[in-house]
């Protein structure tokens, strides 16, 4: 490799790829075969964390940031005056292997600007993955971007070598997409998703009959929506996410708080803060839907189109549904315990295990590491039954907000600070 040039390309093409927030490296079934390099079986690993606190799991780069499209929200848009660069196939292979062997990364996340046409771009991406798998015997994790508009044959080939594929919807609604990316349609994004979904389903069917069936995107597909660039509310965003989970069997939907990168007046101006709290709340809501048995309609609705920013969505739900409480953790079903604010999935399982041996008391819960100061408003203990005063939801909310140190507290302080 020509050292200086590669260094420069890496800086440009990593910088351009960092707004894609997908970082997962888990859930694949790829094992090391025949004493090759790498193993992507099972759990993911975050090898480092950048100063913004985001994890670094994969070598996340663009093949090139040359692009024929002019999507306003994208840093690599055609009209943007940025340095352009392109890796050769061999450079990407050498970087991936060199980083992987040193245990810097779990694998490669390769995306690209669209140069020439979608098929040409996709063909290059596939060529790299194929080379890694077939010539280097590389079994690490590979996340490949499926380029909208690429042919089914190329997508199919990509699925044979990659662990995960993703097509980013970017804008939650068609109107926003039309506003910011006039060259694109939602259907261009939905079509490859649908194709991949069907291929993944039929791979799973085949796997049942023949355990040697070749892998096809064993870690499934994911997508990303940009949050806060356009005016969608959380109900629209979570509704769309729910559609992806239910209709497209998505493994993950990522929410990427918009980082202002443009003076375009259709977008938030440069210097506008990244909507990090909102992004956090959306992820919390996403978790409630995927791991806590909540339905999206319980979290947002027409009367409540946006998530509370000052409290998390589970507490928000509990306060709107006080009639469901108090819950007796010594007898209640797991599903109900999961709905108590301050009790997470692991804690819920701990409670269900521990209560077989004795009736749990408040001090037991504290010992188990449950956020008791938060959950106590929602718990019933047969005796003593002292904590259940009749508080209104507003009172409970005030109590909780006053006793807890929220990492976002400063953002909500309504006191004026003079200095």
């Amino acid at each position, binding site marked *: *490799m020509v*050292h200086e040039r*590669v*260094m420069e390309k*890496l*800086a440009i093409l*990593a*910088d351009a*790829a*960092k*707004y894609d927030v997908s970082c997962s490296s888990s859930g694949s079934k790829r*094992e*090391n075969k025949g*004493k*090759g*390099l*790498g*193993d992507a*079986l099972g759990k993911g*690993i*975050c*090898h*480092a*964390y*950048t*100063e*913004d*606190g*985001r*994890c*670094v799991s994969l*070598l*996340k780069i663009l093949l090139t940031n040359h692009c024929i499209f002019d999507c306003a929200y994208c840093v690599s848009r055609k009209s943007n005056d940025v340095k352009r660069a392109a890796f050769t196939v061999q450079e990407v292979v050498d*970087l991936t292997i*060199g*980083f992987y*062997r*040193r*245990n*810097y990364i779990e694998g490669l996340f390769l995306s690209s600007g669209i140069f020439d046409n979608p098929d040409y771009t996709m063909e290059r991406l596939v060529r790299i993955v194929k080379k890694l798998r077939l010539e280097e*015997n590389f079994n690490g994790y590979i996340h490949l971007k499926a380029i909208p508009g690429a042919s089914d044959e190329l997508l199919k080939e990509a699925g044979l070598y990659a662990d995960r594929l993703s097509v980013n919807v970017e804008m939650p609604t068609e109107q926003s997409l039309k506003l910011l990316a006039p060259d694109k349609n939602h259907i261009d994004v939905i079509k490859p998703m649908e194709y991949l979904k069907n291929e993944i389903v039929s791979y799973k069917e085949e796997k049942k009959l023949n355990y040697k069936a070749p892998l096809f995107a064993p870690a499934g597909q994911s997508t990303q929506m940009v949050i806060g660039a356009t005016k969608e509310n959380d109900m629209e965003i979570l509704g769309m996410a729910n559609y992806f989970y239910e209709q497209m069997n998505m493994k993950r939907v990522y929410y990427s*708080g918009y*980082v*202002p990168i443009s003076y375009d007046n259709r977008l938030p101006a440069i210097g506008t*803060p*990244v909507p*990090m709290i909102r992004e956090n709340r959306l992820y919390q809501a996403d978790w409630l839907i995927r791991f806590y048995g909540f339905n999206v309609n319980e979290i947002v609705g027409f009367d409540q189109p946006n998530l509370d920013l000052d409290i998390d969505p589970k507490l928000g739900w509990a306060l709107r549904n006080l009639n469901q409480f108090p819950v007796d953790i010594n007898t209640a079903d797991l599903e109900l315990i999961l709905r108590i604010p301050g009790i997470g999935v692991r804690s819920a399982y*701990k409670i269900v*295990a*521990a209560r*077989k*041996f*004795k009736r*749990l008391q408040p001090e*037991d819960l504290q*010992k*188990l590491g449950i956020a008791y100061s938060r959950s106590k408003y929602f718990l019933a203990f047969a005796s003593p039954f002292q904590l259940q005063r009749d508080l209104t939801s507003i009172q409970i909310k005030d109590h909780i907000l006053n006793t807890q140190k929220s*990492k976002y507290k400063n953002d909500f302080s309504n006191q004026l600070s003079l200095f």
Partner: protein
Amino acid sequence: MTQVIYDSTFEGWLSAVFEIYELKLEDVVFAKSEVSNALLFSDKHLVSTDLVKAKRVLNGLKQKLSKEGFANIYRAFLSEIDKIDETLFQYVKYIFSSSINVEGDLSNSPVLEVRKAAHLTGRESHRMEAFVRFKLTKDNLYYAIVEPDCDVLPLIERHFKNRYADQRWLIYDAKRKYGIYYDLENTTSVQLEFNANSNSSKFLAEICDDDEEFFQNLWRRYFSSVNIESRKNTKLHLQHMPKRYWKNLTEKIPNLKR
């Protein structure tokens, strides 16, 4: 009170457990052979590590616990938390005294403490799977230095063996002064002295492969390029990458000065 002295290995501790039962010792305190501390008024019982006895205790535990509960005993032992050998013994007594599996009885202190210790070791070994940074030497050895809070090398060996099946590697625990070495066939435990100043430029030039410095610089460049300045969150950064690990993390060591 009897002071039960064992050789500080897991097998030694298991042998001790066996003998405590065999000799019906009561009111025991554990001590590791190197720390001959002064519990003046106690009897001493010296345990010699016996793999057969150790195995019998393990088999007994295996029958009483789930697969994970069983693995947690070893993990908890490796945590090296103060007095974990005593806590584990409390736990083992409870296990053998009960007719049912008690690992879920988390309001019982020894049960919970063992679980927490096992969790701590589990987190530390996951961290080491992430934070190992191999450097390539001129004779094609990938080596890394780590200083984990718990004794995790025995737990991460298989992970690295599966993953780096086609390269020779060595992971050295500078705190505990031993390493694991993989020779393309097997992994073995090795004792050696390691040059502490392995981050110096001179050391790199003498020992390391010609491209090693370039790759380290590429990685540093990558690490800084993927950061988003307007999302800066130092608290989160430190929470995930505590400072005590930085000296062995290539990306947290500034570019080499020549």
